């Protein structure tokens, strides 16, 4: 069995992103693989380990620096990787999906796993676009996954847990709760150095311009919250009621 894992290399969840002149300032910011994608990679490794045969192939689209994120997943146990190297961050999920789908077509995986969204822009679109471009089903926000006879039984997290069956190949978007991702080990890091990473470019794929229909034009810091007001003692009740009525206009 061949499982593809799509990963995004994002500013670390602890990183502080500043905005200057309408642009994101990511200088000196630490990057790591989006945590949702770590669930995807862990699930792929567990499936292959249980089967005793097969391979996990990591896919990523983005600039050269993403090689570090790819290495991290190879160190966790993935077998090899495909890196579509771009000059800059691909911020349009439609275009990212198009590039990934093209690279995936060549590999013909039996199952595609990815985080249900990236931790940076929180869009949750790329995986769905990949499924669309490949013409295969997708299930997102999956917290339990069982495979049998060319089918995937997915539990999708909602107010009520929904169980959805799809035919493979399919794109499954993984959510927290699916598993506990392992830490890479030193041995894994050493082995990762020898694992093959195939690099390609949008030009080689023939999608240099791609299907970009939306672009970010500006970034701004939201206004900081106003300080709360504090009222003390029972005698302030009348004042609170007055403000709720006149200022907050909630009663």
């Amino acid at each position, binding site marked *: 069995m061949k499982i593809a894992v799509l990963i995004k290399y994002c500013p*670390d*969840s*602890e*990183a502080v992103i500043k905005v200057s002149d309408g642009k994101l300032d990511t200088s*000196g910011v*630490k990057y*790591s*693989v989006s*945590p949702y994608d770590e669930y995807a990679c862990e699930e792929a490794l567990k499936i292959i380990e249980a089967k005793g045969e097969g391979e996990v192939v990591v896919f990523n689209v983005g600039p050269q620096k993403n090689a*570090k994120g790819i290495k*991290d997943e190879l*160190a966790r146990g993935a077998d090899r990787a495909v890196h579509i190297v771009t000059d800059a961050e691909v911020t349009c999920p439609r275009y990212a999906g198009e590039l990934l789908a093209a690279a995936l077509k060549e590999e013909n995986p039996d199952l595609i796993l990815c985080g249900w969204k990236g931790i940076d822009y929180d869009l949750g679109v790329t995986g769905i676009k990949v499924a669309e471009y490949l013409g295969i089903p997708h299930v997102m926000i999956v917290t339990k996954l069982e495979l049998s006879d060319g089918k995937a039984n997915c539990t999708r997290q909602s107010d009520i847990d929904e169980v959805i069956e799809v035919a493979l190949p399919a794109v499954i978007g993984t959510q927290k709760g699916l598993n*506990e991702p*392992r*830490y*890479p*080990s*030193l*041995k894994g*890091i*050493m082995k990762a150095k020898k694992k093959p990473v195939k690099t390609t470019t949008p030009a080689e794929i023939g999608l240099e311009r791609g299907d970009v229909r939306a672009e970010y034009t500006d970034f701004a810091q939201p206004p900081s919250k106003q300080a709360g007001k504090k009222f003390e003692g029972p005698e302030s009740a009348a004042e609170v009621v007055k403000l709720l009525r006149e200022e907050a206009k909630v009663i």
Partner: protein
Amino acid sequence: MFTPLSDIHLSHLRSIVGDEFVLTDPESIDYASRDETEDLCFPPECVVRPGTPGEISAIMKFASAEKIPVTPRGGGTGLSGGALPVHGGIVLYMDRMHEIIEIDEGNLFAVVETGIITEMFQDAVEKVGLFYPPDPASRGTCFIGGNIAENAGGPRAVKYGVTKDWVYGLEVVLPNGEIINPGGKLLKNVTGYNLTQLFIGSEGTLGVITKAVMKLIPKPKFSAVLLAAFDDPHAACRTVPVLFREGLDPSACEFMERDAMQMALGHVEKTLPNSDAAAHLLIEIDGNDENRLAEEIEKAGMVCDEGGAIDVILAESGQRVNEIWDIRRGAGEAVKSHSIYKEEDTVVPRAKLPDLFVGVKKICADRRVRSVCYGHAGDGNLHVNLLKDTLTDEEWASRLPPTITEIFKHCVSLGGTISGEHGIGWSQKEYLKLAVSEPELNLMRGIKKLFDPHGILNPGKVIDNRN
């Protein structure tokens, strides 16, 4: 010897700080009667919350004249009873004096009032890209003033040193009410005796520290953590000096034996692949060059591997790094919630750590007292928790003192001492003579007498007037 507080005393204190800042209600008294040292409890007669050094000066003059004991208190997280009013009197609770007066980015110094919580100070300087490294386990609640008084350490001490290495100036109210300002924003300063450093680690017995000039550095951009599992604790300890000899400069190098790891994992509800390994080393490396950091982490991993590690795992993302640290930081509370305990804060030269660990385990096994060890391996600083566990009260009472004495004698025989970062305070006083010679004790007594002739400031701590 001391005067009990009367209503007249209380009303004079109220006239100094204001009515609402002199507290005698049961809740305040109960709060000030404990810290985090075992189950010790010494109620004060009142709690005073001063707002200015001037108020503290007036209180000290009054207390000196009236022979009333005064015990300064920070966050109350001490582990040797330093903030406990063992002779009653006034607890001087410093929480109102918590301003950051200045963050001087040009000179890389901050000036703070000492009632600020350590983590809030750290967060404030990190907002401008700066860093105050000392990180005692209690940093979320302890005060900078308490850190200075106890010369607090923490995991990062191995690279960045302890509190004393970051304090360059102080404002101190002396027991006679005089206010002095030794030191300043000066990297070099040889002008008479170093009074600044004398107050650091003085455990609140020489003066009330009200302001501090703290050195800062730019915050390192990247850090990563290795966790190495060993099936032989001795091998884990032996690996520690090799890391340094190989030229690595870890920002933390921590040791946990199996019981500590398993209790901590239970406490934070986590699992790890090799949680049943006999010992773990946690190694953190920080820096500003991501590639170099990756090389160093790998090298540290190789050293562990060659030292006999059965597995080495790596955490790089902020989330993963925090997960590992939560386990290590949870160890203290986890072990202490397990049973009645007595914690010893042994420290030896780094390369003697294997001998210290083996000796401690043997002493405790021979005396049939359960021990759980963890600590700052890179500093040779091993926290030994002696647990009452299944012992009866009588067994615990009779076995504990000889066990502690033997552990300390072993520690001193290795060139170590009996407290690395928790201080002597009240609870370790009787053991001080095991580590400090009589002439040194006499000098200390003389210093105390000079600063506090009436013996009213934090009486009964560190050292007694007589043997």
